[in-house]
Each structure stands twice: as structure tokens, then as C-alpha cells.
């Protein structure tokens, strides 16, 4: 008995992980190379940002000065240099993206692992709970939570992380369930291996690549989600992120000033990084699971999902 969501979520088809598979298949695809380079450049910029762009908010010129000359991308509504702001924004946006994705992966991974490994009642309870969380609209929930619990970076990371774990949990659960039934795991159990040894030695290595692929996709959603929260004025007021730059441009009436240089670049940054993460995560998932190669996007997230597995004739 399937429901519409489950039919869409057929990502639950388990996969076999061979060592070296990721390296051999994923790294050869042009989309992965492009995606990884973009991510690498952004991470480098984020790490070096205090050196490249100290004091990004400092006023260095007239308000909304057009691009050219000393300021390559002009200035924003506060007269600060746009390039410096973008560099500083990279740091915060990526920090939110990675931190929230890790929180999600930890929660989703733990729930999926427990659910798949123990099965039975634990599985029923945890998956029921996941089903409820999936149906509650995530973006409004994040907005409400951010409005209620205050405007700090930690809160935003936790809010995004605590809400986005559901797809991870289901994916990991299916994988764990299938690995658990494999002969070598059963043999290890028969030889007297305890739960922690089974999980650590036999199950986690089979699940980890999928979890990493999923985390890369989660980075994209988290960066995206941060722009929503920040756009409504719920971001950390002391920090500059890409989402914050879009918000600033909007509230400082960059539109009325025709200052396209204050609005266009931060959105382009978000779109490029989100696209890069999607490409890499997708390529990884595809190489882990060949059934995914004809995929479609899920209704809730901008990620490629598999079509339901074909029936055996």
C-alpha cells in the first residue's frame, strides 16, 4: 500500500556501496567537477574573508555608487563596498549551510539508523513521527520558529537543521534495513558481534556515502532557507550573509535607485552555490544508485528524486 508521498520518495531503494565507487564514477562527470570547483572556491573565500575583506560594513563611498573604478561592484545603500560585502556574506551563508546540514544529517542519520537497525516498534514509532513532520510545511515553520526564538546565528542554524532531517531519515532507514539483512552482517551477528560493532563496522560504512551525498544536498536547502528567514528581517542583525544583502537591498530601496548592482550579485551567488551543491549531491546519489539516473524533482525540495523502481517482469 503506497501513498503519493511514498511513491515520490522511492529514493528508499537500497544500494550496494563498493569502495572507490564514488571516486571512480563521480569525479569523472563534468557536472561534479564544475560543482566541486564552485564549492571549493566559495569555501576558500569564506575562510579567507577576514583577510580579503576586513570591516565589510564600513562606508567607503557614496550611497549606491555605480560599479567601476575603485569599487568593482559599486556600493550598497550604506555606501559599503559590494565586493567586500559579498565576500563577508559567503562566510556566513556557507557557515549556516554546512552547520545546518550537519545538524540535519546527524538527526536524520540517527533516526534512520535506529529505525532501520532495530525495526519493529521503534521503526513504526519513528517513521510515524517522521511522516507527521514531513507534512507540516517547513518554510512557514522555520519562519514562525525564527520569529519566536530570536535572531542569532545559532538559532537559525538549529531551526533549519531541526526541520530538514526528514528525507535523510527515510533514505538512511531504507539503506540500513537492506544492509542489516545481508549475509555478512548476519554472519557477524551469529559470531557474536554486538550492536555497536555491527553498526560501526558493518552498517555505517555502507551508509556513509549516501549520508554524505544527502548532506551536500542539505547544504543547498539550508543556504536557501537562510535567505527566506533573513529576508523577513529575522536574521542575525550583526552579521552579513547573502540573504541579508538581498534583504538590505530591498529595504534600502535599491529598486527605486535603480541600483541593480546591489540586488543582482547576492542572488546570483545563492543560485550558483545552490546549483553547485545540487549537481554534486545529485551526481553522488546517482552513482550510488543507478536507478536514479532518470529522476525528477521532489515536490517539496529542489532535489532530484528517483522514479518508483520498475517492477520485475
Amino acid at each position: 500500500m503506497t501513498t503519493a508521498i511514498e511513491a515520490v520518495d522511492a529514493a528508499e531503494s537500497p544500494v550496494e556501496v563498493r569502495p572507490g565507487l564514488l571516486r571512480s564514477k563521480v569525479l569523472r562527470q563534468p557536472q561534479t567537477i564544475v560543482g566541486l570547483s564552485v564549492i571549493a572556491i566559495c569555501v576558500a573565500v569564506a575562510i579567507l574573508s577576514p583577510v580579503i575583506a576586513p570591516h565589510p560594513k564600513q562606508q567607503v563611498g557614496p550611497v549606491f555608487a555605480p560599479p567601476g573604478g575603485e569599487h568593482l561592484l559599486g556600493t550598497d545603500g550604506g555606501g559599503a563596498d559590494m565586493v567586500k560585502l559579498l565576500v563577508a556574506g559567503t562566510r556566513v551563508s556557507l557557515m549556516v549551510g554546512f552547520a545546518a546540514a550537519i545538524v540535519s544529517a546527524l538527526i536524520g542519520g540517527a533516526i534512520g539508523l535506529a529505525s532501520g537497525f532495530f525495526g519493529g516498534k521503534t521503526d513504526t514509532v519513528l517513521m510515524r513521527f517522521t511522516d507527521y513532520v514531513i507534512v507540516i510545511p517547513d518554510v512557514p515553520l522555520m519562519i514562525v520558529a525564527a520569529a519566536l526564538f530570536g535572531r542569532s546565528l545559532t538559532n537559525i542554524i538549529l531551526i533549519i537543521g531541526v526541520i530538514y532531517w526528514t528525507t535523510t531519515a527515510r533514505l538512511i532507514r531504507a539503506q540500513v534495513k537492506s544492509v542489516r539483512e545481508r549475509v555478512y552482517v548476519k554472519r557477524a551477528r551469529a559470531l557474536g558481534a554486538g550492536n555497536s560493532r555491527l553498526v560501526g563496522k558493518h552498517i555505517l560504512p555502507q551508509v556513509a556515502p549516501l549520508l554524505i551525498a544527502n548532506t551536500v544536498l542539505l547544504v543547498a536547502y539550508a543556504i536557501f532557507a537562510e535567505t527566506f528567514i533573513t529576508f523577513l528581517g529575522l536574521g542575525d542583525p550583526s552579521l552579513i550573509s547573502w540573504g541579508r544583502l538581498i534583504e538590505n537591498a530591498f529595504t534600502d530601496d535599491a529598486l527605486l535607485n535603480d541600483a541593480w548592482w546591489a540586488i543582482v550579485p547576492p542572488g546570483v551567488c545563492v543560485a550558483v552555490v545552490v546549483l553547485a551543491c545540487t549537481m554534486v549531491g545529485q551526481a553522488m546519489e546517482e552513482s550510488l544508485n543507478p536507478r536514479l539516473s532518470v529522476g525528477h524533482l521532489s515536490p517539496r525540495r529542489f532535489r532530484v528524486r528517483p522514479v518508483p523502481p520498475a517492477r520485475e517482469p
Partner: protein
Amino acid sequence: MTGLDYIVKRVLFALVTVFAAVTLNFVLFRAIPGDAVQALRCQHCTVKFKNSLRQELGLDKSKWEQYKLYLQDLAHGDLGKSVRSQRSVWDELWPSIKNTMPMIALGYVFSIVLGTIVGVVSAWRRGTIVDKAGLWTGLGFYSMPPQWLGLMIVLFLAGAVGLPTSGIKDPTLGILGDASTWDLIVDRLRHMVLPALTIGLVLYGEYALIVRSAMLETLGEDYVLTARAKGLSAWATVWRHGFRNALLPVVTLGALSLGYIIGGFITVEYVFSYPGIGLAIVESIDQRDFPVLQGAFLLLAISVIFFNLIADLLYFRLDPRVRA
């Protein structure tokens, strides 16, 4: 499992989820430090006034009592009272809901039509440049924050097409002479076009990919080959044998993705100052009018749960394999 069993099961699941959403809503809004009255942005409110407000809202009672009261009120269709205007939350939100619905419907239709066309063409011409261009454009739009795409449209498109970029009604309309009903409708539509276009563009890529993969699957079926073999034109094959069978996921996912639209349109309405429920949420956050925010969130959650239920039922109706 019979059809009735399935329907009863899905409806029960939806009802339990609504209950879970209600409880989550209560817990979230009571977990904040202080309470709704303390949070209210109001400079000249006296302590006495705030205390009486508290009493009126039932905030002086125990949490358990408050929860029971909240459930009781909801059962009577009472979403509470706005702290700011003292009007009922439903009265505050209803006009916004009425504004939002046609705009979202327009954006939704736009994304489905565009997505279906791009998806069918991509599948038909798979592997060609047309296929790749269509998919990558869709994925590109999908990666853009909707609020930013809205700003881009205001910046680069609105001037060229001469459509209004904010509000829902031309303020001068009806002042400089009489406006007919037709004029009012046209004016209303003109204000809806750009926000709806933003939502449509953000979402169409999703449909394009869904339609494309469903089309590829059906075009590989034997009956499609038979249709071609008996001499049907390529167009007739794609249309009559491919497309109609590929529509199944579009219908069910269409209902599911309404939930996603509901998340995205909040910021889009803010960009276009479109007085819908998204803008009402933004304003209630601004004023820290928590009862209104709470009511709006609950309504959104219930509508998403409702559309999920519809998707499940449609899926059951359309795909006989589910019944097996």
C-alpha cells in the same frame, strides 16, 4: 485492502496530523520566554492594560488549562484574538486569504502549463540541445530564492511590460471617473500577474522534470511502439499514448507541491506588497502579534495537510496499481 479502507486510513492520518500541527503550534508559541502580551510591541501600554489583556487571552491560567481552552476554541472555529487590533484572528486573516487564493492559483496554473510543455518537448527531443536547455533553465530558476527572482522581475521586466509592481489595486481607479466592474477585474488581474509569474517560474522546473521522466517512461512502453508501428504520426503518438499516461504524476505531485508554493509565496508577496496571507505573516512578525502569526501558521499547515490528502486520494483514484 478495499477502497473504503484506504480512504478511511488516509483521512484518519490527515486528522491526526492536524491534531499534531495544532499541538505543535500551541507548544511553540508557549515555549517562548515571556508571553504573547509581553512580546507585543506597544510603547504606551500600561501594566494594568497588559494584565487585563493577559486575563482576556487566558494567559494567567496554567499551561494545561490553556491547552484545553485552545483546543476548545479551535473546535468552535475560534483562532483567537489579535493582540494588536483586538479583532478576531479569522477576521484579520480572511481578507488576505481571499487575496492570496486567486494569485496562487494563477501562478500554479502558469507553472503547470509551462512545466508540462517543457517536459513533453524535452522528453520528445531527449538528449538534444532543446532538452538540455529546457531542463537547465528550469533547474536554474529552481535554485533562485523566490524573493530575489521577484526583485529581478521588478527591476528588469516590470518596466518593459508596464505592469504594476506593488499592491493589489490602482489607488486612482474610480477616483478619476467611474470604473466599471470590467475595469476593476482587469486592474486586479494586472496586479496579480507579476507575483504569480514569479511563483510560476520558480516552480515550473519541477513539473518539467516530473513530466519529462514520466513521458520517457511511457514512451518506452510497448503500446507506444505499437502505436508508431501501426502508422500513427509522431505527434499523435506523443499526445494520445504518451502524454495522457504521463499525466498521472503531474496530477498527484501537483497537489503535493501546493505545500511548497505555500512556503515560497510568503516572501514573494512581501516583495510585491501583495496584501495576502504572506504579507499578513510578515506584518504580524513585525508587530509581534503572535496570535495572528499562530493562526496563519495553523491555516497554512491545515491547507498543506488537506492537499496532501487530496493527492493521496487522487493517486488512489487514478492509479489502479495502488489498489492491488
